[in-house]
């Protein structure tokens, strides 16, 4: 039985299809869940083995990146944590989770140092952490592209309830060093860049596969 992934999307989200493709290539079955279906109760955020918040410009970045989406789903996030559902936030999905308070309040994401959007290939070194999405590939350098304008992590060096999971190796598109955080005992990973791009990127697939393997192993055990 393939693990079931809920891919949440909002008005303005534009990376949901590429994320579906990446998860399916990695061996999962997927379902796109529109935020209204969540808010109306038609779908529960926990009706899945894995939850993913893909990239894009939810609500057009109005008010601020991820702000409106975070406001809408903030009350649903504790259910993911409570049920120990591995969760992945990519780019805007990471920003949504950050604004929803998943990674504690003493870190945040802000504009790139350059002040502009940056789209280019980037290298990431995986740090040793308890993250289920990167377990077993510690110290490995993975290449997948960045595409963001507000991805610089700022705040305290050692946040209370989040751990850096990957850092930039070489060029940083936003001026910061941290490329992603993990939280909730390693079940949640938020990263600014796009492991789903391009389709079939073997480096990016490492992350999707590990998340899927985690729930597969958990189901079996």
């Amino acid at each position: 039985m393939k693990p079931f992934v809920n891919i949440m999307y909002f008005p303005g989200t534009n990376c949901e299809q590429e994320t579906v493709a990446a998860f399916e290539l990695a061996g999962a079955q997927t379902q796109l869940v529109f935020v209204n279906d969540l808010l109306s109760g038609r779908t529960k955020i926990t009706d899945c083995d894995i939850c993913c918040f893909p990239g894009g410009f939810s609500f057009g970045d109005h008010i601020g990146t991820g702000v409106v989406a975070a406001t809408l789903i903030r009350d649903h996030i504790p259910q993911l944590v409570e049920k120990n559902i591995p969760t992945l936030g990519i780019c805007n999905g990471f920003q949504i989770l950050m604004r929803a308070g998943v990674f504690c309040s003493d870190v945040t994401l802000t504009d790139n140092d350059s002040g502009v959007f940056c789209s280019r290939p980037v290298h990431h070194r995986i740090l040793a952490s308890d993250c289920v999405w990167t377990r077993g590939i510690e110290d490995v350098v993975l290449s997948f592209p960045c595409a963001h304008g507000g991805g610089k992590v700022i705040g305290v060096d050692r946040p209370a309830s989040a751990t850096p999971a990957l850092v930039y190796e070489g060029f940083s598109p936003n001026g910061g060093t941290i490329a992603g955080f993990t939280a909730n005992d390693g079940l949640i990973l938020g990263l600014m860049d796009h492991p789903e791009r391009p389709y079939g990127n073997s480096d990016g697939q490492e992350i999707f596969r590990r998340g899927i393997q985690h729930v597969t192993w958990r189901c079996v055990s």
Partner: protein
Amino acid sequence: MMRVYRAAIHNKDQGAEGVYTIYNLEMERPPDREALAGLFCNPLVEGVTEGMPEGEFVEVMYHNGVIDPQQESIIVACGSLGMEVTAAKVSRRYYGQTRNGVFVNKLVQVAFTEEPILGTLRPRGARKGMELFDLTALSGQELMQLSESRDLHLSLPQMRELAQIQRDERLPQVTDVFLETFAARWSDHCYHTTWRALGLFKLLKDATTRIANQSLVSAFKDNAGGWRFYDGLVAVFKLETHCSPSQKEPFGGQETKLGGVIRDILGYGLGALPVGNIELTVVGEFIHKKFSWLADYVLPAKTIARETIRAISSYGNRMGIPMLLARMLSHPNFGGKTFALGGTVGITTEAAAQKGVPEVGDLFVLVGGRTGNDGLHGATVSSGTMTEHTDTGDSCHVQIGNAFTEQKMVQATVELRDAGCVRAVNDFGAAGIVSAMGELGESVGAWGGVLINLALVPLKCAGLANWQIALSESQERMCYVVIPGKLAEAMAIFDRYQLEATVVGIATGNGRFQMIHDPAATKLSATMALSGEIALDVPYSCFDRCPLPEIEVIEPPETERRTCDADLVNNNDVEEWGLPVVRHFDACNQSRATTQYDSTVQGKMLQGPLYGRNYNILSSLAVLKPVYDKAYGLTVSQSFSPWQFEADPVQAAINMVMDAVVTQVISGVAPEDICLADNFYTPSKDQYAWWYLCKQVRAIADLSVELGTPFITGKDSSSGSSAFDGSKLIINVLPSVCITAMGKIDDVNKLLPCQWQQPGNLLYVVGPQALTLNGSMLSAQSGNTGSWLEGIRVSQAKMYIQKLHELAGSGLVKSAVPINRGGIFLRLFEGIEASGLGVNSVLCAALFPESWGAALVEISEAEARHFVEAYGGLAPFRVGRIIDQADTFEVQDRKLCWNRLYTAWNTTFQREVMA
């Protein structure tokens, strides 16, 4: 009682004299300040401002007539926190130095320099009534005065024909809607009057018909061209210019350029999914030398360039459509009116690749953004010359883009298509309802016929007259012709994507284009009597009565044949010659702009706008894999150089076609799998422009037939002249055409790389080789671009391209790039920078001529002899050898200073645009 409450947000690390974002919320009860702070502040970096600083400021916000694009999201977010907001506007307040350079678009924005008193944020105002005219009573002079006073850009014969239509239809008077509708329908933009009068439209279409390429699905009849792909899919592409708006208000103009061409793809057939964008902008000189007086009249080229980058990044990234190719060029003749070209490619199914025929009773549903006064007369302005007054008053054609709305329409369009809800779809571009719904109405049944009730159109501005509602070019709107039995399903899809959708018209089949304004007529029927204000009621056949202008085609007098020779005699001077090439704006490192465009979204891009170890070399060929689990490739190349057109507009057109096709073929795409798009830019005030245009169109049509690569889409802009100081000063763009090629290949693994592969391999040039510097960037620096161009003869093109295709598939070529701007020298420079290898060139003077249509290929030494013998017909000549030394550029064993060249190449864009 409703009140406007304000919450100001500041960045914590800014001083008092900074920029403040102010959220203006119209609410019945005071907001929860703490909740607002949580919503609007990123608490680690931002704070709520308690009391605004003293001092002079400028605060900019949309005026009451325009709904802020962020309003919808603010209402949703506040609603989720239990705060009911009825209207919202976001303003920005600038103190101190930050006030400098603040741009206020007065058509839609208001600037406060004192504390604003905001009674309401909602649109207010009274609707203006229709104006009536008796054209039959007006003299020729009065008819022209009417045309000019309303910015109709209609000629006297056209105005007289309208008077005749009034007589024939026995109308006592005609309305302003009547005048504006005909002005739009008969504009150069919609009716292609110039091209029709010159017989050019037919010429190009006939060439495509003659080619009879099996991959052709649709050419010149839909919003875009359709090209058969694989597995029952159709690739779609379209490019369009948006020059006038982009010159006057570059951010809005460039945003809506992209938004418009994306909608062309959405509106193709029954709807297509956009999978890639193309961007080309040609600005004027950064320091006005040729036209030194121009600085008094136009925005600086730097501003246009920066705003272009900001707009394309802002809009394109939000849309989630990857950037395929992007380039910016500079030429003095584009200083009066920039060449703003945007393109989009898409994918749809064969079943949805043709528009259906609307049936009587089908419903015309207006979807997306609301209608306002942003963008009027875009179609008619295309018929005229831009002046320094073009953007004043109601005739303004500045538009406001809102990618958020359009992005939702992408998702909805595909879903509607697949649900079988729509019979046809069209996008709103120039001339608004008149164009989008008028065109769809024309295809109803045997005779055409549609009735539109303008009173049902949702408005974002108060007080719009009927003609403004009918003509408005407000962005992010589409018209779907929905099958009546499927209306509920279609509305559910629109609702799901939070798109406002309203039935505003019905297919009547009565042969007439009818528009009324009747708020009571909410239920439309195909046979209903016209009620309320009758704004328009004319047979469609009237629109075919446009008198075409008599255009005098004047051949330019023979002039002295000027040549710019490549009289470089030894390798001592190569570096000095090379410096102006690499630092030329057209050739320099533009990655600071290009990396601002998301080129990887959708996960389908194999090769985007940049490549190389430092990701900073502009690609000639973009490669997409539009189907995730298939190796099928969609390839796009584009060719344009103003310097070529300055030297010889006709041969330049041929060279552009050759370059665009060669770029594809030398990479491995079969010639018969390539189709073309033309985007002409012609200066109407240049007395010889029509001669050049006719010659150009014939030349590229003949060449397309010879090559078997048809033109399937295109656009002609004949408004490339700008007049200033009461028309005493005129700038004409060069008579020019940009050629874009789209190809397909069944396996992307067959494509050759553009990056050098192996030290020790040899580099050869194949194809037509130029001997002079005519039309080159280097000649531009000398001030003599020559008066003629070298290039391949049309009659030789087919044989050459076929041989080139054979070579690309031979296995001999390890990497390949076309030789175009900057000649071999620039290709070698880029090869070094991209690969991290070096080169030793045996050539010297031959490095600099620009051989458009030739290619640089990498061949292993072991196979070089066989290559030269087998492909002697391609006139191969050796350029040099790739060497295993990073950043090394040797010419006849003399080493050039790489750092000097690199610095020149790397700093131009920074200096001219970003600094």
